[in-house]
Structure formats: structure tokens, C-alpha cells
């Protein structure tokens, strides 16, 4: 659906050369929700603006959306094409002097559509985002979540194939964030619209994205299926994001304070494959007569699959413990011995 090849974006600020995006190649599939995650300044906002050419990539880069190489279009053709690629923003960017209805009518006006048709279309979209009773209100009178829903309705007015979300939930509280994520998910399933989500919030990726690209310093450092990326992160930056949602690494801070008896082992189990769940631990007891004392566990769902793990003290016969640990290696559970007593 979207193919980015060789995307670079360089800014010249006097003598400073800022390479905001460097040599990015990505392919986003039709109908998927694709996440771009990174800390602020990683270049993700610039990258997403290269998709609708709000930022034009440096010479040599090409952007293909639904078979059209938009980097080669004239400005008039580009404006037509932009109606296929809608965008919502962190700060909503609604027109403050227009009512909710007028905001949704904005992209419909001056396109040769009869006024009654425009209103019918806008009303059906406002109904879709559950705001049909607020049409006469001005943006100032709405909450953040409502504003974003108006922005979504406005973005859908031109029947786009792609919806770009630039930190769309970053200005919202956690409950409202969930609400907007649920709405985006619904739109993706109901309308089949391809969604590109830019975010620094792990929760957003976790809830929403089928696939993800991790960005750092203008480069895509990891890219693929969301579960595989986070189940087995190879880059430090990805691990940092994972840590933001999982408490499992906190054991390192308290590991020294845990008293271990002779022969006991402090271990961290991390789930790295799909379909792993708690019974693996109880099998240690039943199969190898090893006693498992769980210190703490933290499991979070990514794309419906558990990711995370458990920190536990194993006690029992030394050879039994080794056998138990080896058995887990082959069951998509990563075993790390933190300390031996």
C-alpha cells in the first residue's frame, strides 16, 4: 500500500546540518495498522510527513502510495492525491472558528458535491464517531477526546485509503487514549483503511499495531511483526520501550537484596514465543520436583499474545534444577540465571 524507498530528509539550519531521517526503506501493507515508535526527536514525525509530502524527502527518495509514485506528481495532482491520505494530529488542529459540523464539512467543500450531500456525509461520519449530538458546538467546548474524534471524522470525509496518525493520543489521558485506540481499531476493521501510527507510547503499539518500526536518530533500527520485535528485541532502544511497560527488569535493582539459601537459584523467565502461559512453571514442580517460588511476574499482551515473564527462586536438587532449566529453553521461554545461592 505504501512503499518508502531510500527516504532521507536533511535540514540546513545555517551551518548546522540536521539529518532528521536517514535512509529509510519501509513497506506498509494494505489494511494493516503499522506503528512507528521512537522517542521524541527520533524523526518519526518527519518520516510520516514524507508519506503525504508535507515534508518532501531529499532527492532520490521515492514514496509510492497505492501504486502512485507521489514524489513525481505536480502540486495540483499531489493535492488530489492527498485526499486519499488523511492525517490526524497530536493537537487535533480543528478550525476554532468553525462548528463541529463545519469542521467535518471542510474537506467536502469546493469539490462539486451538492450541499445536502455534504451534510449527509458529514452527519454519517459524526455518527460513526459518536458525536452527532455535538454538531453545533465549537471545538473550544469539547474535551480532548471529543476533539480527536471530530478530527477523525474530518479525516475520513474524503474517503481516504490511508490514515496517518501523528501522536494522535499523546495529548490525551489514559482512558481517553483507550477510547481513541478502540475507535481506530474499529475503523481499520470496518472500513479496511490502512493506518500508520506514530507514537512514543508503548501502550499504543501494544494495543493497536500489527507491525512496527522502531526509530532512533532518524534511522529505522528494527522493523517487523509487533510481537516478534518485542518478544525478542535486538536493539537497546526497543528494550527500553519494553521496559517502559514491563517491570521485569526491575529485579536487577533488588536482586542483591534477595536472600538465597545454598543451592537456590534466582532466575528470570522471559516468554519469547507465542502461546506461552503460566503452566510451564508448574510443570517444573511436577516433572522435575523443583520448587518454584515466584518473586514477581509481569505479563502484558501484545497483539493478543502474552509477553513478559516471571522472576522466581528455584530450590531443589542441583541436577534437577539444571534439567528443569534446560527443558524450558526448548519451550520458547528464555531463561536467565540472575544469581546462585
Amino acid at each position, binding site marked *: 500500500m505504501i512503499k518508502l524507498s531510500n527516504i532521507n530528509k536533511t535540514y540546513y539550519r545555517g551551518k548546522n546540518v540536521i539529518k532528521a531521517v536517514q535512509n529509510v526503506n519501509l513497506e506498509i501493507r494494505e489494511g494493516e495498522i503499522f506503528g512507528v515508535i521512537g522517542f521524541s526527536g527520533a524523526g518519526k514525525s518527519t518520516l510520516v510527513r514524507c508519506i*503525504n509530502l*508535507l515534508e518532501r524527502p531529499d532527492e532520490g527518495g521515492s514514496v509510492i502510495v497505492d501504486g502512485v509514485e507521489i514524489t513525481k506528481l505536480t502540486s*495540483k495532482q499531489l*493535492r*488530489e*492525491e*492527498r*485526499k486519499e*491520505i*488523511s*492525517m490526524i*494530529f497530536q*493537537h487535533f*488542529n*480543528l*478550525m*476554532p*472558528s468553525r462548528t463541529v459540523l463545519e469542521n467535518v464539512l*471542510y*474537506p467536502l467543500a*469546493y469539490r462539486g458535491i451538492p450541499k445536502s450531500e455534504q451534510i449527509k456525509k458529514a452527519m454519517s461520519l459524526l455518527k460513526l464517531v459518536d458525536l452527532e449530538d455535538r454538531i453545533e458546538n*465549537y471545538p*473550544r467546548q469539547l474535551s480532548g477526546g471529543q476533539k480527536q474524534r471530530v478530527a477523525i471524522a*474530518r479525516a475520513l470525509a*474524503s474517503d481516504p485509503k490511508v490514515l*496517518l496518525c501523528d501522536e494522535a493520543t499523546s495529548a490525551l489521558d489514559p482512558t481517553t487514549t483507550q477510547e481513541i485506540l478502540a475507535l481506530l481499531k474499529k475503523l481499520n476493521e470496518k472500513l479496511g483503511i490502512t493506518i500508520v501510527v506514530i507514537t512514543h507510547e508503548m501502550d499504543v503499539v501494544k494495543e493497536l499495531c500489527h507491525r512496527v518500526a522502531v526509530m532512533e536518530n532518524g534511522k529505522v533500527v528494527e522493523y517487523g511483526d509487533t510481537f516478534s520485535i518485542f518478544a525478542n528485541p535486538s536493539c537497546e532502544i526497543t528494550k527500553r520501550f519494553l521496559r517502559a511497560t514491563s517491570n521485569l527488569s526491575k529485579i536487577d535493582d533488588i536482586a542483591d537484596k534477595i536472600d538465597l539459601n545454598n543451592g537456590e537459584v534466582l532466575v528470570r523467565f522471559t516468554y519469547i514465543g507465542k502461546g506461552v502461559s503460566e503452566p510451564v512453571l508448574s510443570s517444573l514442580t511436577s516433572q522435575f520436583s523443583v520448587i518454584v517460588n515466584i518473586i514477581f511476574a509481569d505479563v502484558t499482551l501484545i497483539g493478543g499474545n502474552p509477553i513478559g515473564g516471571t522472576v522466581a527462586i528455584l530450590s531443589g536438587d542441583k541436577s534437577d534444577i539444571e534439567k528443569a532449566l534446560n527443558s524450558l529453553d526448548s519451550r520458547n521461554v528464555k531463561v536467565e540465571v540472575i544469581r546462585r545461592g
Partner: protein
Amino acid sequence: MVDLLKGIIPNVVNKPDELLESINQTFYMLSVSGSIAFVLGLILGVVLIVTRPNGILENKFVFSMLSYTINTFRSIPFVILLAALIPFSRMIVGTAIGTTGAMVPLVVGTVPFFSRQIESALSSIDSGLVEAAQSMGSSPLGIIFRVYLKESIPHIVRVTQITAISLIGLTAMAGAIGGGGLGDFAIRYGHQRGQTDVTYVTVLVILCIVAFIQSFGNLIIKKSSH
């Protein structure tokens, strides 16, 4: 009543026609030069906004040329402008004196100030709105009318009030080249012939005009702010 007025403002009461005539001339100068200056200033202000660095039609040459020209004209005191523009006025409107002759310097004196005011009014528009409009496929002209101008109506009205009121001051000065109007009236009788009551009445009339501009503008601001 008439006797009472005769007692307080004798020199005004004995020339009501001249007072009315000069009010008329002030309104004439204000409306004609004001309208022309409004349109020109609005256009130049928009040009400044769209051609500035990172503007939607960024053009370094046009922006800096216009910006320097505006600064140059803004730094010329109006009294000097009145004298300096005499040949230019003759070329444009055929005369350099009288109410019509005063039009040219009034417009030239107002436009640079007003276009800067418009520039500042339009620059208060959140760049996110412009970006949103671009992402929805709006053309530069569409963005100018549907975002910049439409979304800054209250600001535009506010700076128009300020400019209109300063224009009243300029029309009074234009009396110096025989432009007529309330300023001329006050100088001729109030100052040169020592008829102080004429000066006071003139001030009162101008105060009323200012109050009218203020309240009319405020009404539009109230209607257009949400």
C-alpha cells in the same frame, strides 16, 4: 437651548455649516483612503505571511523586498510624506491639494503600518491549522481564504480598529496641505484665531467617531469569536 450653546461655544454655533462640512470631509477621507488602504494592506500582509521563511509559498526575494520597502515607508514621518508625495499625488489623482490630494499620502502612510498589523494578526494562526488544511488537499489560495483570513477575523477586526483610529490622526494632519476636515477646522479657527471652543468641539466630535469605530469593531469581534 440655542442660547445656552451660544453662551458656551459661541464660535461653533455661528458656523454650523463649516463644522458639518469638515466632518463630512473627514468621513470622506477616512472612508475612501481607509478602504483602499484596507484592501492593499490586507493583500500585502497576506503576501508577507505566505512568502516568509517556511510560509506556504516561501519566496525569499519577494519577502525581503516587501519587508524592506514597508520598513522604509514606515520610518518616514507623515508630515514629511505629505510634502514628499506632492508630485506623485499629481500623477495619480491629478491634484496634490484638497481632500482628494490628501488621499494618496493617507494611503501611502497607512498601508505599511496596516500590512504589518495584518501580518501579525495572521501569524497568530497555529501552523498546525495550515498543515491540516494542506493534508486535506487545500490549495495555497484555499489556505489563504479558508484558514488564514477566515480563522483570524477577530484579529483582523482588532487591527483594523487600531489602524482606523490612527488614520483619523493622519487625516487631521492632512489638513496642513489644505485637505480640509476636522483637523483643518480646529487649526484654522481654534489655533490660528484663538477660538478655543472650536478646538474642544472638534475633539469631542473625533472622540465620538473613535467611540463608534471601537464599539462597531467590538460587535464584530464578539460575533466572530468562539
